[in-house]
């Protein structure tokens, strides 16, 4: 474990500005003991803001691009069913490549930085979102689609006015899983030199205060994104909450 990590900084050079940078007036003994030091945390909280902002950016961009790609693929595959199997296989392979391995595979091609991190992060969202959109569209009751066509909605109208709205809960569910997964994976982005909350975490893994704050922010971000998607979904699907009278 430590051996593996030991070789990483050669490539990643993570933790700029964080390396053993613990100088602090308050609670000096707590800090030197690697403990959880509330006073230190309060004093140094602002230094986590930049990595947090970066982490949000990494996640949101990855989700936006991942959603656009998988949603488009899903719409294509919805009408051309034969596309589903190859898309699932391809995105499935991407999904199973270990993230660290992918970073290192990409380094020679795309170099260190944001782009490399995004390529990896995006590729992990594809399978989840694609599958959920396809499942959601498949789950639309056939009688509803039949009635829509029978009343004279054309294919595009059926898709956008009937099928996609009714698939929204399933689509949102996929987006939520993708969001939480991406927040977690983005903490490895610093290996690709893309920053994020992984930076402070790996800069001082022994210092509990540091790991607690950076790790805690990851968790909070995941929860916040999850709730955000949920809130938007509930806003867009009022009928799912209609109580039978």
């Amino acid at each position, binding site marked *: 474990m430590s051996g593996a990590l030991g070789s990483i900084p050669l490539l990643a050079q993570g933790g700029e500005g964080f390396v053993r940078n613990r100088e602090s007036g308050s609670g000096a003994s707590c800090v030197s003991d690697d403990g959880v030091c509330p006073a230190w945390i309060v004093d140094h909280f602002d230094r986590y803001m930049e990595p947090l902002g970066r982490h949000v950016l990494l996640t949101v961009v990855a989700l936006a691009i991942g959603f656009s790609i998988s949603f488009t693929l899903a719409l294509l595959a919805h009408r051309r069913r034969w596309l589903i199997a190859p898309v699932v296989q391809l995105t499935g392979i991407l999904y199973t490549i270990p993230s660290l391995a992918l970073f290192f595979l990409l380094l020679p091609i795309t170099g260190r930085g944001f782009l490399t991190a995004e390529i990896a992060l995006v590729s992990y969202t594809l399978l989840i979102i694609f599958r959920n959109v396809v499942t959601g569209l498949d789950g639309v009751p056939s009688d*509803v689609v039949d*009635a829509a066509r*029978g009343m*004279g*909605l054309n294919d595009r109208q059926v898709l956008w006015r009937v099928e996609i709205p009714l698939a929204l809960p399933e689509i949102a569910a996929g987006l939520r899983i993708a969001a939480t997964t991406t927040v977690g994976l983005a903490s490895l982005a610093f290996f690709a030199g893309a920053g994020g909350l992984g930076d402070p975490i790996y800069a001082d893994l022994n210092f509990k205060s540091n790991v607690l704050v950076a790790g805690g922010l990851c968790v909070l971000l995941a929860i916040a994104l999850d709730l955000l998607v949920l809130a938007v979904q509930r806003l867009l699907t009022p009928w799912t909450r*209609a109580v039978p009278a």
Partner: protein
Amino acid sequence: MSTPDQTPSGAAAAASPASAASPDRAPAQLEFVDVVKRYPGASAATIESLSLDVPAGEILVLVGPSGCGKTTVMRMVNRMIEPSGGQILIDGEPNTTRPAAELRRDIGYVIQQTGLFPHRTIAENVATVPKLLGWPKARIADRTAELLELVGLDPEFAGRYPAQLSGGQRQRVGVARALAVDPPLMLMDEPFGAIDPITRERLQNEFLRLQETLKRTIVFVTHDIDEAIKMGDRIAVMRPGGHLAQYATPAELLLSPADEFVEQFVGADRALKRLALGRVRDLRLEETVRVRYGDPTAWVREQLRTSQVPYPLVVDADGRPLAWLDDDDLRGERVVEGVGSAVATVERDDILRDAFSDVLAHRVQFAAVVDGHGAVIGILSSDAVARELAPGPAPVEPVEAGAGPGTGS
């Protein structure tokens, strides 16, 4: 042509064909000409050269066992399925001259599972086609309110979602939605199939009442011969393999099935089923001796000799039936208060089946036909019902029932 448009923003509608959807559109005449449906790779045709003529304003029922192609026939009308050959003419015009989506907006469509949009309110569901046609908002709102009332739904349902309604209510919404632009032609695929029997009966009756005023041309698919007989002006019985076995009115179908298949399909009780087609007023009523409690029995016996009905009927001061009397009740000097057996009471508008059933449930096989006030206007005998069912000409004037002079037999 421009139709009176109360809405200020009618300009948008006037520019589109939507304005043609005026509240009183004429029903369409529908014709199938040698229609064939054959799926590639299938050995036999799904529909074998079907020709049918449906007059405007009538209900055509397509009925048959599953796999007979009845739904396929219906779905070819609005081109949900494209025929492999032949033509379907709507008011003489092939249904292929317009784009399918445009054609469908002009044809009401009701299916068994309702197909209501779960994510749209009842009002929005009903407004589907008007919205597609670009009606102005105010006109849509007016029409939606009107339609909900027409199908007997409380206006408060307008804002609800389909999941908040019962099966029967949902099916009403389905009918309202199909009627939205008053389409000249409607397709209904087992519309009442998934509903409990009591609600189904009520919806059928309400729909028939609605049809009396709307007079739409309707293609109605069912596998239930009783429903076919009840709903249809004309019935097309389909045989597995897509053959038309018989095309006839309900009465013709029951009286003279074309072949063994039809005979079996309409059922061994087809004579009884014809009772569902007639009403008490269609039959000639008979007369009996009407007596009051306290009348002398000798007089009653004397009257009975010339009576068509062998039982005297006790009535009250207002002519309402109280009891049938038999020989035992006439033993004393006078008709004793309270004697006699219960009387089946039917009205002129009752369906014969119900009236006959009522007669069978009583000891005396005659029913008193009463008017709106309950007073007796005549007697219905089970013989008269039986004569109505007997095949042959003119059962309306049975010779032996004639009480007038000169009716020798």
